[in-house]
């Protein structure tokens, strides 16, 4: 989170006495994030989230990434996107790509790096380009089938308890299957991803 953003949030908070309670925690979280106190940041973002801030969900996900909990971060980003798709910016997309990359969800990472690159500045763009090249190298056709099996197995393992994270694995498997010459388990992966992407019963 940039220091400009923290300052803007703090100024808004000072100028408007009737701001929602969640904003104070959002600012506290942003300050902790900037000070690299990621555990404190995560807690403040979670409290802001509990008080109604959907924006805070994105920053909580970024905090999880900084805490080295890549899978948790991937899951949190999926949930944040569901609650407020518009809150993402280029930096959060980079964080999301990093979380995917660390969880070995390479197509997911590539997608978010690509999206961020279109809006990135001159310092970030070359780094994203390098990361995307590494991803291309990692996706060797000969190893795709085994990679699909691993991701589908993980998706199956998670689908009952952590469907949002399972969705990320199932989408990755479906994407890899689309690149596999034998279309290895493509229908199975696509079906699982579609089922997990459907809104939970009762959410409408």
């Amino acid at each position: 989170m940039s220091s400009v953003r923290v300052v803007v949030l703090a100024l808004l908070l000072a100028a408007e006495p009737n701001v929602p309670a969640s904003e104070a925690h959002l600012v506290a979280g942003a300050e902790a994030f900037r000070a690299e106190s990621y555990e404190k940041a995560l807690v403040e973002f979670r409290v802001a989230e509990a008080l109604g801030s959907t924006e805070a969900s994105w920053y909580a996900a970024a905090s999880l990434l900084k805490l080295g909990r890549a899978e948790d971060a991937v899951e949190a980003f999926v949930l944040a996107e569901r609650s407020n798709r518009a809150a993402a910016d280029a930096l959060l997309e980079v964080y999301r790509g990093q979380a995917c990359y660390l969880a070995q969800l390479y197509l997911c990472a590539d997608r978010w790096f690509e999206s961020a690159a279109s809006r990135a500045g001159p310092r970030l763009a070359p780094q994203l380009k390098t990361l995307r090249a590494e991803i291309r190298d990692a996706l060797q056709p000969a190893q795709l089938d085994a990679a699909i099996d691993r991701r589908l197995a993980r998706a199956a393992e998670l689908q009952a308890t952590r469907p949002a994270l399972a969705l990320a694995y199932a989408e990755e498997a479906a994407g890899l299957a689309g690149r596999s010459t034998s279309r290895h388990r493509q229908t199975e992966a696509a079906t699982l991803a579609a089922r997990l992407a459907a809104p939970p019963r009762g959410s409408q």
Partner: protein
Amino acid sequence: MTAALLLLLAAADPCAVPPPGRGAGDPREAAIYVRVGDSERSRGNLGAAREAYLAALSRAPDSAEARRGLEAICRSEADPLQAGADALEDGDPQTALQSLANARGRGNDRAVDLLEGIARYQLGQDATAIPLLESARSDPALGESASFFLGLIALRRGDGDRASRLFDQAGRAMGLEDAARQLARMAQQEGHVVLSVGAELVYDTNVALRPDGAPLTLPGPDGSVGLTLMGLVRPWGTPGPYLRVEGQFSKQFTISELDLIGGAAALGWRLLGPSGSLTGEYAYNYQALDGRGYLADHRVFLGGSLLTGMFLWGAAYAAHFETYRWEALSDQSGVRQVLELDAALLPGAGFRLTAGYAGTWDAARVDPLSYLEHGPIVELVWARGPVTVGARGAIGWRTYRTEDPNYQVPDSDPPVYLRREDTRYFATTWLDLGLGAQWSVRGTVRLFRTNSNIADINATEWVFIGSVAWTGSVL
């Protein structure tokens, strides 16, 4: 001075509870921090959870929930073994492994081996889990628990014999007894040579399917006792080939014409994968009623199942080449084919809900006795410890191929014959109770009802069965 010292100590120790009386904040906000702390703790994010509890205590110093949470966190951080055990209990083997990585070298490595072995087993890493569990088994205090999980691995690998022995050892441990007993029963059925003996007492309200409103002089209710023997030989365990031999005897209390003696032999092959199985089998079955040869049946069977996530998909096909030995029934001889497709939902907590559709095509020697039957099937089973409860219902719509000269439309001239069309209803419920690794008792109630366009065929039958069975692996 004291307050200053306490604050200094609190700053030095991240687990120190802030001293009370610093002034309360918003208790609702404190409650939110506690919820966040609980949530992060359950995810294994102990540092964030500690931050949340401390934030809660700074707003509500008297919050018992926040104090309890903080104390639990600090215990876990001080004792990574406990943290690993907590994570396993929360169903998070990955986090357990992270905690256990810091637990070695503190004088309790056998316990670490046990917990890491369990976590590896839960993650499907059997090859890594086995040496860890074997190491834990060398500690008498941990032996039973380690044996239990080694048994689970053996069962997963199809080595029922070894699984059975390990579950026997595990059954000595308090708390594992129920699970070990049920798994031992499964393992007993996975041995190289398995014997099973079953005895049953039956009461049937309509043993000869007397039509509705028929005179009471026709055979009606009757009881029987039955005995079933089964032997199964699997030289190489499962997967692999097998030979099954069965004997069946049933003695009616009053209608001796229905006394049954039967025998069957089957040769098959069962393939078993991590998420599916496939069985192919040929069987010959011979039955005699009242001492006279009644039915000879050559059967070819192919069936399989596939587990994907919470769903178990099943398919089964059988072709029966049947020969009725009695002259009066010989026209019913022919080929009867049965196909069933089903899907079972396994939502956990021991439940299995199955829905399927079955079809039968019976090509008898004469067309009026040939029929097509099809209809849905639903089954619900719940198993917990030694208890299994189940209920199954099915409907079959049966249409015969042509008109039957035995059923003439009344007063028709020239005679017009009816083609038989039946709707058949089946319902069964049962309760099975395991008594130790080898014995089980079961109570079953069955209902069968036929509604036909020919009133003489309408009938209802209730069957009540009490049975006891012994199943054991002898090799």
